[in-house]
């Protein structure tokens, strides 16, 4: 049965909403508005003069093949991070769900990496794969594989994907595990009695019942890969080699804060805002239909 709390009058509910409205206005609407405004100008870095260019910044971006390439890079990167981190997490969650002894310890250990900040995670992975002193690159060398993510684009992409997914596995694991444990045992047992093996049970019962969790994680992870992986990219590759790991948000930073080209940077933020908005709409409109609540 649904429980409804109703307020008498308007004042209290408005008051309770106010903090959230204020935070959204101050930290989202105001900066987003600024970005849209600035994207119409080519300003000098010190804010001494602004030159109005209309949609010139956007035209410049549309014509820039490297900006278009950055879209592809971002799509590949976000797709890989989402698939790797969710796949790994689901696998681990299914295993942990079946554990009877010591499951608490496993869970705690699996959740740890989430506490590591992306930039720190980046440095950790960089140390392991450092072309000169890295432990893993040294072992790879023994096997006859010459690891060099400083020049090899595929290796660089692989490394940032793994480093970005690592901490994320923990987060996804938590949600998947909670989702798995919320599935009534009786349903699974009934299927087992009917003769369904593990894989069949997983495919026809567990996975569909897990879909709200999966959907939620899909949205959250894509947003993560778009924005929060900045620290990993910055510490490991700085967007290189060439532009192999320059995702959209890294380009916003590079053009704005290294290049002092605030007009282009603002225009890119606006594009990014639209892209993420669009992605979220698509997800809710089309993928959510397949979700069983």
């Amino acid at each position, binding site marked *: 049965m649904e429980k409804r709390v109703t307020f008498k009058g308007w004042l209290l509910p408005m008051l309770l909403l106010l903090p959230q409205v204020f935070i959204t206005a101050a930290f989202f609407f105001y900066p987003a508005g600024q970005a849209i405004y600035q994207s119409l100008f080519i300003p000098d870095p*010190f804010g001494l003069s602004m030159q109005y260019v209309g949609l010139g910044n956007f035209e410049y971006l549309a014509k820039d093949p490297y900006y278009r390439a950055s879209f592809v890079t971002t799509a590949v990167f976000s797709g890989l991070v989402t698939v790797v981190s969710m796949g790994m997490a689901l696998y681990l969650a299914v295993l942990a769900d079946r554990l009877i002894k010591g499951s608490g310890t496993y869970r705690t250990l699996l959740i740890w990496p989430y506490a590591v900040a992306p930039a720190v995670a980046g440095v950790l992975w960089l140390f392991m794969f450092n072309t000169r002193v890295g432990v893993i690159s040294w072992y790879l060398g023994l096997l006859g594989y010459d690891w060099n993510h400083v020049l*090899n684009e595929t290796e660089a992409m692989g490394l940032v994907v793994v480093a970005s997914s690592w901490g994320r596995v923990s987060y996804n694991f938590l949600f998947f595990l909670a989702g798995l444990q919320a599935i009534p045992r009786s349903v699974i047992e009934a299927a087992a009695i009917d003769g369904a093996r593990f894989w069949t049970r997983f495919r026809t019962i567990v996975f569909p019942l897990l879909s709200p969790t999966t959907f939620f994680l899909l949205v959250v992870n894509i947003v993560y890969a778009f924005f929060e992986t900045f620290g990993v990219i910055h510490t490991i590759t700085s967007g290189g080699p060439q532009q192999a790991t320059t995702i959209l948000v890294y380009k916003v930073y590079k053009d704005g804060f290294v290049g002092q080209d605030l007009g282009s940077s603002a225009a890119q933020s606006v594009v990014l805002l639209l892209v993420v908005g669009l992605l979220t709409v698509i997800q809710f409109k089309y993928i959510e239909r397949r979700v069983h609540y």
Partner: protein
Amino acid sequence: MTIRTLLGGAALSLALGTSAYAQTEIQFWHAFTGRLGELVAEQVETFNGSQSDYTVVATHKGNYSETLNAGIAAFRAGEQPDILMVFEVGTATMMAAKGAIKPVYEVMADAGADFDADAFIGAVKGYYTTTEGEMLSMPFNSSTPVLWVNRDALSEAGIDPDTDLSTWQNVGDVLDQLKDAGNECPLTTAWQSWIHLENLSAYHNVPFATQDNGFAGFDTELALNGPVQVKHIETMGEWAKDGKFIYAGRRNEGGANFRAGECALFTESSAGYAGIKSEASFEFDVRPLPYWEGVEGAPQNTIIGGASLWVMEGQSDEEYKGVAEFLNFLSSPEIQAKWHQDTGYLPITAAAGELTREQGFYEENPGTDVAVKQMTTNEPTANSKGLRLGSFDQIRGIIDEELEAVWSGDKSAQAALDSAKERGDQLLRRFEAAN
């Protein structure tokens, strides 16, 4: 808070602050950490102890790019420091910011301070002065690229460690021998764009960009895809393919490989001296940067890297007086000579170089004057005065990307440099539009 602690606090601040109230505070933002940070702190302390009118407060604001950003953000918020350290590639950005900076020659003239721009060595002065010879920012730490040699590695490969490495032709022969002897890192580099394109161009007296490398106006275009540059990058690309040149990264990552004794030759700033001296457990040597024999006008002179100090607009006259005094203190021969000897940065004034020589430093540390000679033997030309390009930090990023394409064999040298020019020119046009 009780009355007692309040009174106690007041008494304490009175005791500590008697002189502070009379002193004008000067904010100085810089980008140095580690040993360099300590040395700057020492200079500031010496200045503060030497007089009682001003207190300089030095604050570390991150690396060069971050310090510049901090300065820009602070200016936009009206909280700018008196002095901001800006690396050489930010020079054009600062020069274009007419209302944000106060040129050093003006600061000195207003303060009535004794100041002679000609005291600075030509190549340093040229970088930071207008075409009329007015000094806009105060040179501080300047270095130039040189060739560092691991003598032990050469001996191990059966090469005379005193062999002539003055030309790239000779270096090429030595790399072959090193490779044949099984050396896994014959040559590595730091700051590839700065050394192998910007300095290469100046050293061979060819333009890096039109309009006197940007000194004559904002309507400049890159010219880094000329035959000299293409030939050099092409050769480096072949060396990279054969495992004779090992690329370690965009900044000075290669330094770790060299200091660990893995690499035989290393092109890096003269300011690599402090680190190499303290870490290298092998015999090393400093040589002039090699040049291509047969190119007319080579070797000309190399150009500088490093940073200068910019005075920000919007402070009181009193503060500017202090700034003038502090800047004069920093460029005094004693301070500069010590800085030069501690760090490997160039002595930016002729007097500081002279003092270092008198103190016998060059005799005790052979090779430490290589950089000075390399910069000062020839009078700078329009191609070797320096570079003044907008968005230059970002252009360097583009050059890094294109060079990586050459090192990995994805692009030919000509194609990569053509593309660097095209992409860089777009940024130069945007910079021109913004200013």
